[in-house]
């Protein structure tokens, strides 16, 4: 108990230092502006900023990335409400409801509701993250090789299902190709070179960070820049801060949406988009007939449901990332990359190998949430000005950031070429309807799956299948979950 208190106090002292607050403020501001710009997604921001975080100290990098994450998830709501173009895909429900309100002169109030809902959503996510981490860590410590292999495979499979919607097969294919990429290099047990084709540089494995930058940075530029520019019409915003009575009216919706957002966030591959869409849909079904009549024409309750959920998703996505080393979504994969680059070992042993870092992340999320609230109110008007900038001006400027970021990771030009190839491959995969997140997740989890499967098989060499199933109940449960994920994808959603 004393150790926990001591760690908490020391991490609070670091997190509340003026420099850390400035870093967090910079991250939140950058995140809000980035998220508000149509076409610039949260994942793209996170992927590109990994490069910048290489030059920061451990705590500064973590605080900066958390600030960007928190800010950019909300940022999408600003353009959604004011110009009817969602800054990020998870802001589509906010756009459907917020833009009609803006046209009626209630844009400010719609945005104020979105800000308050986001603030609340972050709180729900943080509280649930803090509450569940000890239990998940305890459970994770019971995992052995067999369970770790199954967990990694489930992560890839569910990510494939969640990313591809009605075509889970395509999500799985993307994930399985990612697995093959992860096998490139010297294998961890015997040191045999796999899929290197004689190139020594490939023996060191393919880093997932340039892949992340290519797939979510360069691919987006290739997708968005050649398109014709949509019209952007900035509007007046009016009153921003909503009355408390209005927020209280939607307290139940907020709580339900917060729970949905956090749970969805904890499932690998399901991020803010699934969270806000699902929460919006459930809230519509549960709304009073009088409120439901406003749905689609400008409902404040709908905005609350979507914004609480997509922000609660942040806390949820950190849960598997920190405790199991399995990112909850692509943005969390970028957080994972930043943590790993700063030698923070995530997973069941995070508490023992990096004492106090979890507390720092909790405090960082809380600080980022408060700063997000105030900065969001302050940045609405500058954002309106920002929308007048064409995308054709902004997107080319992403290209040097992609090159700098990929190079900064290990100062190798090979990574820059890798980023370029990933960008082109991402574009082609997108044209053919394949999601990209499962591939990144598989590249991260592939080595874990490979090593643990072979270890487990060696342990089970003299056991019968039945005895393995009986002796390892946790593994059996996970095996059933994996089978169910495929069953659900093939026979229900994939029909």
């Amino acid at each position: 108990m004393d150790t926990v208190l001591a760690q908490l106090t020391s991490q609070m002292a670091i997190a509340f230092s003026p420099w850390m607050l400035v870093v967090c403020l910079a991250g939140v501001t950058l995140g809000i502006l980035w998220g508000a710009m149509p076409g610039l997604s949260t994942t793209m921001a996170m992927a590109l900023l990994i490069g910048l975080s290489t030059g920061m100290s451990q705590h500064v990098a973590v605080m900066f990335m958390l600030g960007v994450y928190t800010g950019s998830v909300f940022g999408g709501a600003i353009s959604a409400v004011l110009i009817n173009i969602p800054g990020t895909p998870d802001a589509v429900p906010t756009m459907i409801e917020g833009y009609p309100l803006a046209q009626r002169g209630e844009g400010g109030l719609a945005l104020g509701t979105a800000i308050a809902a986001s603030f609340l959503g972050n709180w729900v996510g943080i509280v649930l993250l803090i509450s569940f981490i000890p239990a998940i860590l305890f459970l994770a410590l019971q995992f052995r090789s067999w369970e770790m292999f199954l967990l990694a495979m489930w992560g890839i499979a569910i990510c494939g299902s969640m990313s591809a919607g009605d075509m889970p097969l395509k999500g799985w294919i993307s994930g399985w190709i990612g697995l093959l990429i992860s096998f490139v290099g010297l294998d961890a047990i015997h040191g045999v070179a796999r899929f290197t084709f004689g190139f020594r540089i490939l023996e060191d494995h393919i880093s997932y960070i340039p892949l992340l930058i290519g797939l979510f940075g360069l691919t987006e530029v290739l997708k968005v820049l050649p398109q014709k520019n949509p019209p952007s019409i900035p509007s007046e915003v009016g009153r921003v801060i909503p009355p408390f009575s209005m927020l209280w009216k939607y307290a139940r919706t907020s709580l339900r949406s917060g729970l949905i957002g956090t749970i969805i966030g904890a499932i690998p591959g399901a991020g803010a988009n699934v969270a806000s869409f699902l929460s919006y849909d459930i809230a519509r079904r549960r709304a009073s007939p009088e409120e439901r009549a406003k749905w689609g024409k400008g409902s404040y309750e709908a905005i609350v449901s979507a914004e609480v959920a997509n922000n609660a998703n942040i806390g949820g996505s950190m849960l598997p990332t920190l405790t199991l080393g399995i990112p909850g979504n692509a943005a969390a994969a970028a957080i994972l990359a930043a943590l790993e680059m700063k030698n923070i070992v995530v997973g069941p042993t995070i508490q023992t190998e990096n004492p106090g870092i979890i507390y720092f992340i909790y405090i960082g999320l809380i600080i980022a949430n408060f700063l997000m609230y105030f900065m969001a109110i302050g940045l609405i008007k500058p954002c309106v000005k920002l929308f007048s900038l064409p995308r054709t001006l902004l997107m080319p400027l992403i290209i040097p950031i992609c090159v700098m970021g990929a190079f900064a990771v290990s100062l190798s030009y090979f990574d820059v070429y890798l980023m370029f190839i990933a960008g082109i491959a991402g574009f082609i995969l997108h044209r053919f309807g394949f999601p990209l997140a499962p591939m990144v997740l598989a590249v991260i989890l592939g080595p874990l799956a490979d090593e643990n499967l072979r270890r487990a098989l060696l342990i089970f060499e003299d056991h019968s299948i039945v005895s393995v199933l009986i002796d390892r109940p946790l593994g059996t449960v996970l095996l059933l979950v994996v089978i169910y994920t495929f069953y659900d994808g093939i026979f229900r959603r994939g029909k």
Partner: protein
Amino acid sequence: MADTPKSRLETDVESLATGNFTGEEGGTAVSPGKDLASAAMVGVIGIGAMLLSLDLDAPASLYTAPGLLPFITGLSLLIMAAGLAAKALKRAPLREILKSAHDPIGPFIADIEGRRTLILMGLVLAYVVLTDLINFEIRMPAGFYTFRFSSYETISIPVIALILKLFWRARWLACIAVAAGMVIGLAWIFRDGFEILLPGSG
């Protein structure tokens, strides 16, 4: 039978109206022809992975063979490719798919957005290759601060200005000014602000 996917926004708005979620990365509906081509490619990758895995040494038992999981992955990819092909053929008969698939690249190049994308890819490739091949750095000490200008800025400014000219379509002077301001600013943030080495320089 649309050959290009619907925009992300269109699919998302549709999915919200119907309550059918299109997944975290949006809709994936493409033509059966594209799905069949994908299936063929994935099948080739799967077979390739299986063959390469069989070729790997197995220093100890089969259970720890380095090619074990890669082989299983390749085999599963082959099965998934068959599944994808079956789904594509269920949506349209093979004859119809082959009839429309005689020229897979043509429609993309004929489309203005497709041509712009190809030009952009070429420019980015040229940019990446040039920053790799050309390496120099000029240092100009000025009292307490040393100004640094490297091959990275030298290559980035004209390439980004050219991309801006092609897509933003402003005057040359404006494109060069924006590119120079952005590249020099970024280089300063990375190199001086965070002490991160830039490609082709120090």
